[in-house]
Protein backbone atom coordinates (compact mmCIF):
# COMPACT_ATOMS: atom_id res chain seq x y z
CA UNK A 1 0.00 0.00 0.00
CA UNK A 2 1.35 3.44 -0.96
CA UNK A 3 0.36 6.47 1.09
CA UNK A 4 0.48 9.99 -0.36
CA UNK A 5 1.76 12.76 1.90
CA UNK A 6 2.92 16.34 1.57
CA UNK A 7 6.23 16.85 3.32
CA UNK A 8 6.17 19.60 5.95
CA UNK A 9 9.90 19.53 6.72
CA UNK A 10 10.40 22.79 4.80
CA UNK A 11 8.31 25.24 2.76
CA UNK A 12 8.94 23.45 -0.56
CA UNK A 13 6.25 20.86 0.33
CA UNK A 14 7.32 17.82 -1.70
CA UNK A 15 4.61 15.36 -2.73
CA UNK A 16 5.78 12.12 -1.07
CA UNK A 17 4.72 8.54 -1.70
CA UNK A 18 5.40 6.18 1.17
CA UNK A 19 5.44 2.44 0.46
CA UNK A 20 4.12 1.10 3.77
CA UNK A 21 4.81 -2.60 3.04
CA UNK A 22 8.30 -1.90 1.75
CA UNK A 23 9.71 -0.62 5.08
CA UNK A 24 8.11 2.80 4.53
CA UNK A 25 10.31 3.55 1.48
CA UNK A 26 9.81 7.20 0.47
CA UNK A 27 9.79 8.55 -3.10
CA UNK A 28 9.07 12.04 -4.42
CA UNK A 29 11.33 13.71 -1.85
CA UNK A 30 13.99 16.27 -2.82
CA UNK A 31 16.12 15.82 0.31
CA UNK A 32 16.87 13.41 3.16
CA UNK A 33 14.43 15.12 5.49
CA UNK A 34 11.58 13.80 3.35
CA UNK A 35 12.66 10.19 4.01
CA UNK A 36 12.61 10.78 7.76
CA UNK A 37 9.34 12.71 7.68
CA UNK A 38 7.50 10.20 5.46
CA UNK A 39 8.24 7.28 7.73
CA UNK A 40 7.71 9.10 11.02
CA UNK A 41 4.45 10.72 9.90
CA UNK A 42 2.87 7.30 9.39
CA UNK A 43 4.37 5.59 12.48
CA UNK A 44 4.58 8.33 15.10
CA UNK A 45 3.71 11.83 13.84
CA UNK A 46 5.47 14.65 15.72
CA UNK A 47 5.34 18.44 15.64
CA UNK A 48 7.16 21.50 16.97
CA UNK A 49 4.76 23.54 19.11
CA UNK A 50 5.03 27.32 19.29
CA UNK A 51 2.92 29.48 21.57
CA UNK A 52 3.24 32.22 24.20
CA UNK A 53 3.33 32.48 27.99
CA UNK A 54 2.40 35.40 30.25
CA UNK A 55 5.35 37.68 31.03
CA UNK A 56 5.42 40.33 33.79
CA UNK A 57 7.38 43.59 33.47
CA UNK A 58 8.11 42.99 29.77
CA UNK A 59 7.43 45.54 27.04
CA UNK A 60 4.57 43.26 25.96
CA UNK A 61 2.21 40.90 27.83
CA UNK A 62 3.28 37.71 26.09
CA UNK A 63 6.63 35.97 25.65
CA UNK A 64 6.85 33.67 22.60
CA UNK A 65 8.04 30.13 23.38
CA UNK A 66 8.60 26.87 21.51
CA UNK A 67 9.39 23.23 22.11
CA UNK A 68 13.12 22.69 21.56
CA UNK A 69 12.32 19.53 19.61
CA UNK A 70 9.34 17.71 18.15
CA UNK A 71 6.72 16.23 20.46
CA UNK A 72 4.14 13.55 19.61
CA UNK A 73 1.20 15.13 17.75
CA UNK A 74 -1.20 13.60 20.28
CA UNK A 75 0.46 15.59 23.10
CA UNK A 76 0.01 19.07 21.57
CA UNK A 77 -3.03 20.04 23.64
CA UNK A 78 -1.49 18.67 26.86
CA UNK A 79 1.52 20.90 26.26
CA UNK A 80 -0.74 23.90 25.54
CA UNK A 81 -2.48 23.30 28.88
CA UNK A 82 0.86 23.42 30.71
CA UNK A 83 1.80 26.64 28.93
CA UNK A 84 -1.40 28.33 30.10
CA UNK A 85 -0.25 27.94 33.71
CA UNK A 86 3.15 29.58 33.26
CA UNK A 87 3.93 33.14 34.32
CA UNK A 88 7.49 34.43 33.86
CA UNK A 89 9.12 37.74 34.74
CA UNK A 90 11.30 39.90 32.47
CA UNK A 91 14.25 39.93 31.78
CA UNK A 92 14.35 36.59 29.92
CA UNK A 93 17.05 35.65 27.42
CA UNK A 94 16.23 33.88 24.16
CA UNK A 95 16.78 30.13 24.59
CA UNK A 96 16.09 30.12 28.36
CA UNK A 97 14.31 26.94 29.45
CA UNK A 98 10.78 27.86 30.60
CA UNK A 99 9.49 24.30 31.28
CA UNK A 100 11.87 21.38 31.57
CA UNK A 101 10.77 18.01 30.14
CA UNK A 102 7.27 19.23 29.33
CA UNK A 103 4.59 16.52 29.89
CA UNK A 104 7.38 13.91 30.19
CA UNK A 105 8.19 14.20 26.50
CA UNK A 106 11.90 14.73 27.15
CA UNK A 107 11.52 18.06 25.34
CA UNK A 108 11.89 21.49 26.93
CA UNK A 109 9.89 24.66 26.38
CA UNK A 110 12.30 27.52 25.64
CA UNK A 111 11.91 31.29 25.15
CA UNK A 112 12.02 32.21 21.47
CA UNK A 113 13.07 35.81 22.08
CA UNK A 114 14.69 37.96 24.72
CA UNK A 115 12.39 40.33 26.59
Amino acid at each position, binding site marked *: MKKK*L*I*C*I*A*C*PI*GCHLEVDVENNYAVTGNQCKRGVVYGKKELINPT*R*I*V*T*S*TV*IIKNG*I*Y*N*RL*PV*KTDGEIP*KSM*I*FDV*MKQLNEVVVTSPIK*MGKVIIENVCDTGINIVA*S*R*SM
Partner: protein
Amino acid sequence: MKMYDVIIIGGGSAGLAAALEINKFRKSKILLLERDAELGGILLQCIHNGFGLKVFKEELTGPEYAERFIDELHEKGIEYKLNSMVIKLHPDKRVEYANIEEGFVTIQAKAVILTMGCYERSAGAIGLPGNRPSGVMTAGAAQKYLNIDGYLVGKNVFILGSGDIGLIMARRMILEGANVLGVAEILPFSGGLKRNIVQCLDDYDIPLYLSHTVTEIKGESKISSVVISKVKDFVPIPGTEIEFEVDALLLSVGLIPENGLSEACGIDMDSRTKGPIVNESYQTNIDGIFACGNVLHVHDLVDFVTEESRRAGQAVVKYLENQLEKSDNHIEMISKDGVSYIVPQQVNVNNINDKLELFLRVQKEYRDVNLVVRSNDTIIKTIRKKHMAPAEMEQIKLKVEDFDSVIGSISISVEERQ
Protein backbone atom coordinates in the same frame (compact mmCIF):
# COMPACT_ATOMS: atom_id res chain seq x y z
CA MET B 1 21.39 69.10 8.13
CA LYS B 2 22.81 65.77 9.29
CA MET B 3 24.45 63.72 6.53
CA TYR B 4 24.45 59.95 6.11
CA ASP B 5 25.87 57.64 3.49
CA VAL B 6 22.75 55.47 3.64
CA ILE B 7 19.33 55.93 5.19
CA ILE B 8 17.25 52.77 5.37
CA ILE B 9 13.51 53.22 5.81
CA GLY B 10 12.08 50.27 7.79
CA GLY B 11 13.79 48.06 10.40
CA GLY B 12 12.26 44.71 9.48
CA SER B 13 13.96 41.75 7.87
CA ALA B 14 14.85 43.68 4.68
CA GLY B 15 16.23 46.77 6.40
CA LEU B 16 18.26 44.74 8.91
CA ALA B 17 19.87 42.57 6.23
CA ALA B 18 20.64 45.53 3.95
CA ALA B 19 22.23 47.52 6.80
CA LEU B 20 24.42 44.60 7.88
CA GLU B 21 25.50 43.81 4.33
CA ILE B 22 26.58 47.39 3.62
CA ASN B 23 28.47 47.50 6.91
CA LYS B 24 30.22 44.25 6.02
CA PHE B 25 31.75 45.59 2.81
CA ARG B 26 32.16 49.32 3.40
CA LYS B 27 32.66 51.51 6.45
CA SER B 28 29.61 53.70 6.05
CA LYS B 29 27.48 56.08 8.06
CA ILE B 30 24.19 54.18 8.10
CA LEU B 31 20.90 55.12 9.75
CA LEU B 32 18.02 52.68 10.07
CA LEU B 33 14.64 54.33 10.73
CA GLU B 34 11.89 52.22 12.33
CA ARG B 35 8.39 53.45 13.18
CA ASP B 36 7.66 50.70 15.73
CA ALA B 37 9.01 50.44 19.29
CA GLU B 38 11.39 47.62 18.32
CA LEU B 39 13.41 46.42 15.34
CA GLY B 40 12.35 43.19 13.63
CA GLY B 41 9.15 44.15 11.85
CA ILE B 42 6.41 41.60 11.30
CA LEU B 43 8.74 38.71 12.28
CA LEU B 44 8.10 39.57 15.94
CA GLN B 45 4.46 38.49 15.77
CA CYS B 46 5.17 35.42 13.59
CA ILE B 47 5.93 33.16 16.54
CA HIS B 48 5.55 29.95 14.48
CA ASN B 49 8.59 28.12 13.14
CA GLY B 50 9.75 27.63 9.55
CA PHE B 51 12.03 30.63 9.15
CA GLY B 52 15.75 30.45 8.38
CA LEU B 53 16.09 27.11 6.60
CA LYS B 54 17.99 28.74 3.75
CA VAL B 55 19.83 31.52 5.57
CA PHE B 56 20.75 29.74 8.81
CA LYS B 57 20.26 26.10 7.73
CA GLU B 58 18.01 25.56 10.72
CA GLU B 59 14.37 26.09 11.50
CA LEU B 60 13.66 29.17 13.63
CA THR B 61 10.62 31.10 14.80
CA GLY B 62 10.09 34.66 13.56
CA PRO B 63 11.32 36.34 16.77
CA GLU B 64 14.44 34.14 16.82
CA TYR B 65 15.21 34.99 13.18
CA ALA B 66 14.83 38.71 13.92
CA GLU B 67 16.88 38.60 17.12
CA ARG B 68 19.92 37.15 15.34
CA PHE B 69 19.98 40.14 13.00
CA ILE B 70 19.21 42.66 15.75
CA ASP B 71 22.04 41.25 17.92
CA GLU B 72 24.45 41.59 15.02
CA LEU B 73 23.29 45.15 14.35
CA HIS B 74 24.08 46.03 17.98
CA GLU B 75 27.43 44.25 17.77
CA LYS B 76 28.44 46.26 14.71
CA GLY B 77 27.24 49.50 16.27
CA ILE B 78 24.96 50.45 13.38
CA GLU B 79 22.83 53.49 14.23
CA TYR B 80 19.04 53.15 14.34
CA LYS B 81 16.09 55.12 15.61
CA LEU B 82 12.87 53.59 16.96
CA ASN B 83 9.38 55.14 17.10
CA SER B 84 10.52 57.26 14.18
CA MET B 85 8.09 57.73 11.34
CA VAL B 86 9.34 58.86 7.95
CA ILE B 87 6.94 61.53 6.70
CA LYS B 88 8.49 62.34 3.34
CA LEU B 89 11.22 61.18 1.02
CA HIS B 90 12.59 63.65 -1.54
CA PRO B 91 14.15 62.71 -4.90
CA ASP B 92 17.38 64.48 -3.80
CA LYS B 93 17.51 61.93 -0.95
CA ARG B 94 16.50 64.17 1.89
CA VAL B 95 14.42 62.27 4.41
CA GLU B 96 11.94 63.90 6.78
CA TYR B 97 11.00 61.94 9.90
CA ALA B 98 9.38 62.61 13.25
CA ASN B 99 9.64 61.15 16.73
CA ILE B 100 8.77 62.26 20.25
CA GLU B 101 12.32 63.13 21.39
CA GLU B 102 13.57 65.03 18.34
CA GLY B 103 10.33 66.33 16.87
CA PHE B 104 10.43 66.96 13.15
CA VAL B 105 13.83 66.33 11.55
CA THR B 106 15.23 66.49 8.01
CA ILE B 107 18.39 64.55 7.13
CA GLN B 108 20.32 63.95 3.94
CA ALA B 109 21.68 60.71 2.49
CA LYS B 110 23.82 59.73 -0.48
CA ALA B 111 21.67 56.62 -0.91
CA VAL B 112 18.26 55.59 0.43
CA ILE B 113 16.93 52.04 0.68
CA LEU B 114 13.19 51.50 0.82
CA THR B 115 12.42 48.54 3.10
CA MET B 116 8.93 49.40 4.34
CA GLY B 117 7.49 45.94 3.79
CA CYS B 118 3.84 45.40 3.00
CA TYR B 119 0.36 45.64 4.53
CA GLU B 120 -2.71 43.42 4.43
CA ARG B 121 -5.60 43.88 2.04
CA SER B 122 -8.64 44.91 4.05
CA ALA B 123 -12.38 44.27 3.91
CA GLY B 124 -12.84 47.46 1.89
CA ALA B 125 -10.12 46.54 -0.57
CA ILE B 126 -11.87 43.31 -1.59
CA GLY B 127 -15.38 44.78 -1.55
CA LEU B 128 -16.57 42.45 1.20
CA PRO B 129 -20.38 42.52 1.24
CA GLY B 130 -22.62 42.93 4.28
CA ASN B 131 -22.36 44.91 7.51
CA ARG B 132 -19.18 46.20 9.10
CA PRO B 133 -19.70 45.02 12.69
CA SER B 134 -16.81 44.55 15.11
CA GLY B 135 -15.11 41.18 14.90
CA VAL B 136 -14.08 41.53 11.25
CA MET B 137 -10.33 42.06 10.96
CA THR B 138 -7.25 41.01 9.05
CA ALA B 139 -5.50 37.81 10.10
CA GLY B 140 -2.33 39.78 10.85
CA ALA B 141 -4.21 42.08 13.22
CA ALA B 142 -5.63 39.05 15.06
CA GLN B 143 -2.10 37.61 15.14
CA LYS B 144 -0.73 40.73 16.80
CA TYR B 145 -3.57 40.81 19.35
CA LEU B 146 -2.94 37.17 20.25
CA ASN B 147 0.83 36.75 20.08
CA ILE B 148 2.00 40.15 21.32
CA ASP B 149 -0.86 41.40 23.50
CA GLY B 150 -2.39 38.10 24.63
CA TYR B 151 -5.99 38.68 23.46
CA LEU B 152 -7.97 36.00 21.64
CA VAL B 153 -10.26 37.88 19.24
CA GLY B 154 -12.97 35.21 19.03
CA LYS B 155 -14.19 31.81 20.18
CA ASN B 156 -15.91 30.80 16.94
CA VAL B 157 -13.90 31.94 14.01
CA PHE B 158 -14.18 31.79 10.23
CA ILE B 159 -11.31 32.71 7.93
CA LEU B 160 -11.65 34.20 4.45
CA GLY B 161 -8.66 33.59 2.20
CA SER B 162 -6.17 30.76 2.39
CA GLY B 163 -3.01 32.86 2.45
CA ASP B 164 -0.30 31.69 4.83
CA ILE B 165 -1.18 34.12 7.61
CA GLY B 166 -4.77 32.86 7.60
CA LEU B 167 -3.64 29.23 7.75
CA ILE B 168 -1.14 29.93 10.53
CA MET B 169 -3.82 31.80 12.47
CA ALA B 170 -6.32 28.95 12.03
CA ARG B 171 -3.96 26.62 13.91
CA ARG B 172 -2.98 29.28 16.42
CA MET B 173 -6.61 30.04 17.36
CA ILE B 174 -7.39 26.31 17.70
CA LEU B 175 -4.40 25.82 20.01
CA GLU B 176 -5.66 28.68 22.19
CA GLY B 177 -9.08 27.06 22.53
CA ALA B 178 -11.15 28.69 19.77
CA ASN B 179 -13.23 26.78 17.21
CA VAL B 180 -12.17 27.47 13.65
CA LEU B 181 -15.22 26.62 11.57
CA GLY B 182 -13.57 26.81 8.18
CA VAL B 183 -11.45 28.63 5.65
CA ALA B 184 -12.97 29.88 2.38
CA GLU B 185 -10.86 30.48 -0.73
CA ILE B 186 -12.37 32.11 -3.81
CA LEU B 187 -9.83 30.44 -6.12
CA PRO B 188 -9.92 26.71 -6.91
CA PHE B 189 -6.54 26.35 -5.16
CA SER B 190 -4.97 27.69 -1.97
CA GLY B 191 -2.75 30.74 -1.95
CA GLY B 192 -0.75 29.34 0.96
CA LEU B 193 2.19 26.96 1.19
CA LYS B 194 1.22 23.28 0.94
CA ARG B 195 2.90 22.48 4.23
CA ASN B 196 0.66 25.00 5.95
CA ILE B 197 -2.46 23.33 4.53
CA VAL B 198 -1.21 20.08 6.06
CA GLN B 199 0.07 21.22 9.43
CA CYS B 200 -2.45 24.01 10.08
CA LEU B 201 -5.73 22.77 8.56
CA ASP B 202 -5.51 18.99 8.02
CA ASP B 203 -3.88 18.36 11.42
CA TYR B 204 -6.92 19.93 13.14
CA ASP B 205 -9.64 18.82 10.68
CA ILE B 206 -10.42 22.39 9.66
CA PRO B 207 -12.41 22.35 6.38
CA LEU B 208 -11.06 24.31 3.41
CA TYR B 209 -13.84 25.53 1.10
CA LEU B 210 -12.20 26.08 -2.29
CA SER B 211 -14.07 28.18 -4.89
CA HIS B 212 -16.08 29.76 -2.06
CA THR B 213 -16.28 33.29 -0.74
CA VAL B 214 -18.10 35.28 1.94
CA THR B 215 -21.35 36.67 0.51
CA GLU B 216 -22.92 38.08 3.66
CA ILE B 217 -21.85 39.30 7.09
CA LYS B 218 -24.60 39.43 9.70
CA GLY B 219 -24.70 41.23 13.02
CA GLU B 220 -25.37 44.78 14.20
CA SER B 221 -22.61 46.05 16.46
CA LYS B 222 -20.89 42.65 16.73
CA ILE B 223 -20.60 40.00 14.00
CA SER B 224 -23.06 37.13 14.56
CA SER B 225 -22.63 35.00 11.45
CA VAL B 226 -21.07 34.78 8.01
CA VAL B 227 -22.60 33.28 4.89
CA ILE B 228 -20.37 31.73 2.27
CA SER B 229 -21.33 30.69 -1.27
CA LYS B 230 -19.73 28.60 -3.96
CA VAL B 231 -18.48 30.68 -6.90
CA LYS B 232 -18.11 30.09 -10.60
CA ASP B 233 -15.80 32.53 -12.40
CA PHE B 234 -15.83 34.63 -9.21
CA VAL B 235 -19.65 34.94 -9.29
CA PRO B 236 -21.56 33.43 -6.31
CA ILE B 237 -23.96 30.61 -7.24
CA PRO B 238 -27.43 31.08 -5.65
CA GLY B 239 -28.57 28.17 -3.49
CA THR B 240 -25.07 27.17 -2.36
CA GLU B 241 -25.07 29.33 0.78
CA ILE B 242 -23.69 27.94 4.05
CA GLU B 243 -24.09 29.98 7.25
CA PHE B 244 -21.69 29.84 10.19
CA GLU B 245 -22.35 31.39 13.59
CA VAL B 246 -19.18 33.26 14.45
CA ASP B 247 -17.83 36.01 16.67
CA ALA B 248 -14.85 36.75 14.44
CA LEU B 249 -14.05 36.76 10.74
CA LEU B 250 -10.37 36.92 9.82
CA LEU B 251 -9.27 38.09 6.40
CA SER B 252 -6.19 36.61 4.77
CA VAL B 253 -6.70 37.99 1.29
CA GLY B 254 -3.32 39.16 0.19
CA LEU B 255 -0.52 41.58 0.91
CA ILE B 256 0.28 44.86 -0.81
CA PRO B 257 3.72 46.52 -0.77
CA GLU B 258 3.56 49.70 1.31
CA ASN B 259 4.66 52.37 -1.14
CA GLY B 260 2.98 55.60 -0.03
CA LEU B 261 6.39 57.23 0.50
CA SER B 262 7.78 55.89 -2.78
CA GLU B 263 4.85 57.10 -4.88
CA ALA B 264 4.86 60.55 -3.28
CA CYS B 265 8.57 60.76 -4.15
CA GLY B 266 7.87 60.13 -7.84
CA ILE B 267 9.25 56.60 -8.03
CA ASP B 268 7.94 54.63 -11.01
CA MET B 269 5.78 51.68 -9.94
CA ASP B 270 5.04 48.28 -11.46
CA SER B 271 1.25 47.83 -11.60
CA ARG B 272 1.60 44.06 -11.15
CA THR B 273 4.01 43.86 -8.21
CA LYS B 274 2.64 47.10 -6.68
CA GLY B 275 6.29 47.85 -5.92
CA PRO B 276 8.89 50.11 -7.52
CA ILE B 277 10.36 49.24 -10.92
CA VAL B 278 13.99 48.38 -10.22
CA ASN B 279 17.05 47.40 -12.21
CA GLU B 280 19.62 44.63 -11.64
CA SER B 281 21.04 46.69 -8.74
CA TYR B 282 17.64 47.14 -7.07
CA GLN B 283 17.84 50.82 -7.95
CA THR B 284 14.59 52.65 -8.77
CA ASN B 285 14.20 55.24 -11.53
CA ILE B 286 15.50 57.83 -9.06
CA ASP B 287 19.29 57.78 -8.82
CA GLY B 288 20.46 56.54 -5.42
CA ILE B 289 17.08 55.26 -4.22
CA PHE B 290 16.95 51.48 -3.89
CA ALA B 291 14.22 49.04 -2.81
CA CYS B 292 14.21 45.46 -1.52
CA GLY B 293 12.07 43.01 0.43
CA ASN B 294 8.29 43.03 0.56
CA VAL B 295 8.08 46.72 -0.43
CA LEU B 296 9.45 45.62 -3.82
CA HIS B 297 7.33 42.49 -4.29
CA VAL B 298 5.68 40.16 -1.77
CA HIS B 299 7.92 37.20 -0.97
CA ASP B 300 6.91 33.69 0.19
CA LEU B 301 9.74 33.33 2.69
CA VAL B 302 11.72 35.72 4.86
CA ASP B 303 14.87 33.89 3.76
CA PHE B 304 14.29 35.22 0.23
CA VAL B 305 13.82 38.74 1.65
CA THR B 306 17.15 38.46 3.45
CA GLU B 307 18.97 37.22 0.36
CA GLU B 308 17.46 39.93 -1.84
CA SER B 309 18.28 42.63 0.71
CA ARG B 310 21.89 41.44 0.91
CA ARG B 311 22.17 41.75 -2.87
CA ALA B 312 20.63 45.23 -2.68
CA GLY B 313 23.09 46.12 0.10
CA GLN B 314 26.01 45.03 -2.10
CA ALA B 315 24.67 47.17 -4.95
CA VAL B 316 24.43 50.18 -2.62
CA VAL B 317 28.10 49.66 -1.68
CA LYS B 318 28.98 49.76 -5.39
CA TYR B 319 26.87 52.90 -5.77
CA LEU B 320 28.68 54.63 -2.90
CA GLU B 321 32.01 53.66 -4.49
CA ASN B 322 30.85 55.06 -7.85
CA GLN B 323 31.09 51.59 -9.37
CA LEU B 324 27.54 51.41 -10.69
CA GLU B 325 27.34 52.34 -14.34
CA LYS B 326 24.61 54.86 -15.05
CA SER B 327 22.90 54.25 -18.33
CA ASP B 328 19.42 54.47 -19.80
CA ASN B 329 20.43 51.71 -22.18
CA HIS B 330 18.96 48.74 -20.36
CA ILE B 331 17.32 45.47 -21.23
CA GLU B 332 13.59 45.36 -20.52
CA MET B 333 12.21 42.19 -18.89
CA ILE B 334 8.84 41.23 -20.38
CA SER B 335 6.31 38.90 -18.75
CA LYS B 336 4.75 36.80 -21.51
CA ASP B 337 2.22 33.92 -21.50
CA GLY B 338 1.57 32.58 -18.01
CA VAL B 339 4.02 34.88 -16.21
CA SER B 340 2.51 37.59 -14.02
CA TYR B 341 5.64 39.52 -13.12
CA ILE B 342 9.45 39.54 -13.19
CA VAL B 343 11.80 41.31 -10.76
CA PRO B 344 14.06 43.11 -11.58
CA GLN B 345 12.16 44.72 -14.44
CA GLN B 346 15.24 46.25 -16.12
CA VAL B 347 18.82 45.04 -16.54
CA ASN B 348 22.07 46.84 -17.30
CA VAL B 349 24.41 43.96 -18.15
CA ASN B 350 27.54 45.98 -17.34
CA ASN B 351 26.53 46.03 -13.66
CA ILE B 352 26.22 42.24 -13.36
CA ASN B 353 29.20 40.51 -11.79
CA ASP B 354 28.85 36.93 -13.03
CA LYS B 355 25.17 36.06 -12.77
CA LEU B 356 21.78 37.67 -12.34
CA GLU B 357 18.93 36.19 -10.32
CA LEU B 358 15.44 36.83 -11.67
CA PHE B 359 12.30 36.26 -9.62
CA LEU B 360 8.89 35.69 -11.09
CA ARG B 361 5.42 34.43 -10.38
CA VAL B 362 3.16 32.48 -12.69
CA GLN B 363 -0.53 33.22 -13.22
CA LYS B 364 -1.98 29.79 -12.42
CA GLU B 365 -1.04 26.27 -11.43
CA TYR B 366 1.05 24.39 -14.02
CA ARG B 367 2.34 20.81 -14.23
CA ASP B 368 5.20 19.56 -16.37
CA VAL B 369 5.86 22.69 -18.42
CA ASN B 370 8.89 24.73 -19.51
CA LEU B 371 9.85 28.22 -18.45
CA VAL B 372 11.37 29.70 -21.61
CA VAL B 373 13.66 32.75 -21.62
CA ARG B 374 13.89 34.47 -25.02
CA SER B 375 15.35 37.56 -26.59
CA ASN B 376 13.32 38.32 -29.71
CA ASP B 377 13.11 34.82 -31.23
CA THR B 378 16.31 33.38 -29.78
CA ILE B 379 15.88 30.97 -26.88
CA ILE B 380 18.40 31.83 -24.15
CA LYS B 381 17.37 29.29 -21.57
CA THR B 382 14.72 26.62 -21.08
CA ILE B 383 13.94 25.35 -17.60
CA ARG B 384 11.80 22.27 -17.08
CA LYS B 385 9.26 22.67 -14.26
CA LYS B 386 7.35 19.77 -12.75
CA HIS B 387 5.05 22.04 -10.77
CA MET B 388 4.49 25.79 -10.54
CA ALA B 389 1.83 27.78 -8.69
CA PRO B 390 1.15 31.49 -8.11
CA ALA B 391 1.89 31.05 -4.39
CA GLU B 392 5.41 29.85 -5.10
CA MET B 393 7.98 32.33 -6.37
CA GLU B 394 10.18 31.01 -9.16
CA GLN B 395 13.84 31.83 -9.54
CA ILE B 396 15.91 31.89 -12.75
CA LYS B 397 19.66 32.42 -12.80
CA LEU B 398 21.20 33.96 -15.92
CA LYS B 399 24.95 34.11 -16.47
CA VAL B 400 26.60 37.17 -17.98
CA GLU B 401 27.28 35.10 -21.13
CA ASP B 402 23.55 34.46 -21.49
CA PHE B 403 23.14 38.15 -22.33
CA ASP B 404 25.61 38.03 -25.26
CA SER B 405 22.90 37.61 -27.88
CA VAL B 406 20.29 39.78 -26.18
CA ILE B 407 18.98 42.81 -28.03
CA GLY B 408 16.58 45.25 -26.35
CA SER B 409 14.47 42.93 -24.25
CA ILE B 410 14.10 39.51 -22.66
CA SER B 411 10.78 37.73 -22.40
CA ILE B 412 9.84 34.82 -20.16
CA SER B 413 6.86 32.57 -20.83
CA VAL B 414 5.33 29.31 -19.66
CA GLU B 415 5.18 26.81 -22.54
CA GLU B 416 3.96 23.26 -23.15
CA ARG B 417 6.71 20.67 -23.21
CA GLN B 418 7.29 19.39 -26.77
